[in-house]
């Protein structure tokens, strides 16, 4: 675990708060799904919060572009889409960030440079590579962050994209959120190699494995990688080791995992890790933490209220937004 000694409270506290917001948001989304307020596929991010928050803290907002797969609620929130807009999108309301046309897997904000989740495993990887191509061509000074899961790494889209990115020297950071399971299939049962980061090395791309449960490590590694990527205009690849607490989607009770395995990961919960260290360093008291928790729960509760009270899209919306 990385030390937090070099950081000030006013840097760490917003990160802790944001991770907690994502956690509480997902808990509420799961709850509302259970109440049938939300339908379809709903892939929760619980357990992986350090990845999205550590990354978001290292990005240049409004300049760097982010794409991910269908487990995109966490990234949407940390990219700056409001809880109201995300929850309303899950409800399919017109006030949602994609006007109720995208849903859980397709949370977009062109302004905030959140280029969405993607419902096809690995489908976003070539698109992200193209975003980096445009950034370089148009000299925006930005880079693209491309997230995907361990299940996506075997797709041709991954391999074709990394080859192109290295060949054309594109400013893109590929991040494989290895949460150990592609739906119900463990990495061991799907990958010919144990360490996924070596797949990036096959394309001459600097690649490493990082601990996705430690938000400070994610932040530091992504920050220095982005600096190098922009300076040298060359891609990098991270295998981010993380864990999802919930099943693949709402219909998955995750019976393929042992209780012991899940408990072992819960013991290194990314929110607790940061909180405990901040308490240790006397930057935070238990009372303060409870106060923050109360605040974010209130924000999440309001997002539900906002979604519930928002109007359905007008039927005329069916045929808009198909052609520009």
């Amino acid at each position, binding site marked *: 675990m990385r030390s937090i000694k070099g950081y000030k409270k006013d840097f760490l506290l917003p990160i802790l708060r944001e991770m907690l917001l994502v956690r509480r948001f997902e808990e509420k989304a799961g709850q509302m799904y259970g109440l049938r307020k939300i339908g379809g596929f709903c892939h929760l991010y619980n357990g992986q919060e350090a990845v999205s928050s550590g990354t978001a803290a290292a990005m240049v907002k409004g300049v760097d572009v982010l794409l991910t797969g269908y487990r995109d609620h966490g990234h949407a929130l940390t990219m700056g889409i409001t809880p109201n807009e995300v929850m309303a999108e899950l409800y399919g309301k017109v006030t949602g960030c994609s006007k109720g*046309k995208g849903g859980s897997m397709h949370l977009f904000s062109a302004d905030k440079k959140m280029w969405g989740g993607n419902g096809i495993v690995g489908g976003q*990887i070539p698109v992200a590579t193209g975003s980096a191509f445009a950034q370089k061509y148009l000299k925006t000074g930005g880079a693209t962050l491309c997230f995907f899961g361990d299940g996506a790494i075997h797709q041709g889209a991954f391999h074709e994209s990394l080859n192109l990115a290295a060949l054309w020297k594109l400013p893109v950071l590929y991040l494989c959120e290895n949460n150990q399971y592609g739906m119900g299939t463990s990495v061991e049962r799907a990958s010919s190699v144990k360490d996924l980061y070596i797949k990036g090395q096959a394309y001459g791309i600097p690649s490493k494995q990082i601990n996705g449960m430690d938000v400070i490590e994610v932040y530091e590694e992504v920050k220095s990688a982005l600096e190098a990527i922009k300076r040298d205009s060359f891609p990098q690849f991270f295998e981010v080791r993380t864990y999802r607490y919930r099943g693949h989607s709402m219909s998955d009770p995750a019976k393929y995992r042992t209780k012991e395995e899940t408990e072992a990961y819960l013991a290194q919960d990314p929110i607790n890790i940061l909180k405990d260290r901040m308490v240790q360093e006397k930057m935070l008291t238990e009372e303060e933490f409870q106060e923050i928790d109360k605040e974010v729960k209130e924000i999440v509760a309001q997002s539900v209220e906002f979604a519930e009270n928002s109007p359905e899209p007008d039927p005329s919306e069916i045929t808009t937004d198909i052609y*520009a």
Partner: protein
Amino acid sequence: MAIITMREALRQALDEEMQRDPTVILMGEEVGQYDGAYKVSKGLLDKYGDQRVLDTPITELGFTGLAVGAAMGGLRPVVEWMTIQFGLLAIDQLINNAAKMRYMSGGQFKIPMVVRGPNGPAEYLSSQHSQSFASYFVHVPGFIVLAPSTPYDAKGLLKTAIRDDNCVIFLESEMSYGLKGEVPEEEYLIPIGSADVKRQGTDVTIVSFSKPVLQCLAAAEELARQGISAEVVDLRSLRPLDEETVYASVRKTNRVVVVDEAWPNAGVANYVTSLISRNCFDDLDAPVEEVTGMDVPMPYNHTLELMVQPSVEKIVAAAKRALYID
């Protein structure tokens, strides 16, 4: 007017649009140093450099998806598939990302890109390189699908396609790159969604697109020799389809033949036939005839491969069936 080949017409369109707009880039297999597998991009690398004319590895899914992202990021990529047949490897990126990103994001993005390459049967290529996939793309909301038959149409439509803010699938024909035709010196554009009556007639309407239009025109000549006046409607744009031009012709002739070199099941021909049957039912004096490729993979043997495809004879026979002439 200058007489130039289809290949040159397409090259001029690319050249002019790259000259006009620095965000237009061209990528694909062999488009640069090799001048294009069919020499459509001849000289463009020298003129615009390797940042705008990009030779890709043989990785259709990768570079097509890359073009989608580049389009979202503010460029206007033109992707050349060496043939549309190879595009099957990339079709997920086109259907799931290029055609839907705008809708799924509630209208926040546009995808101004063109995917072009030869579609349909060529010669002596057997089954994997000789097939028409027009219907695959026409099926999908979010695409624009163009399929010109002449150098004039090809140039005017490609220029429009590059300027359009949507994903345009531009279907060429391997057998037509050497086809010559008149093309004006001055700039012109052809609007998307406009069919063209290539020959006026009064007795029967023949509707087609892309390379088979030439066979339709030859069939119309033959029919004229037999005293039958055939009108030939070139759809040019398959999505959106210029239904009014088709219906106007049907209302005039009351008899229709639809010609498509693709397989007969669930193809563009079926689609056009169903539209005419539904919207011109009272105007029809005979069932709509279809001349399509046969429902078989393409054989290698030249005699057999010609038998499988539409021909002037088959079109003439279909027109006479529509006229109840034996």
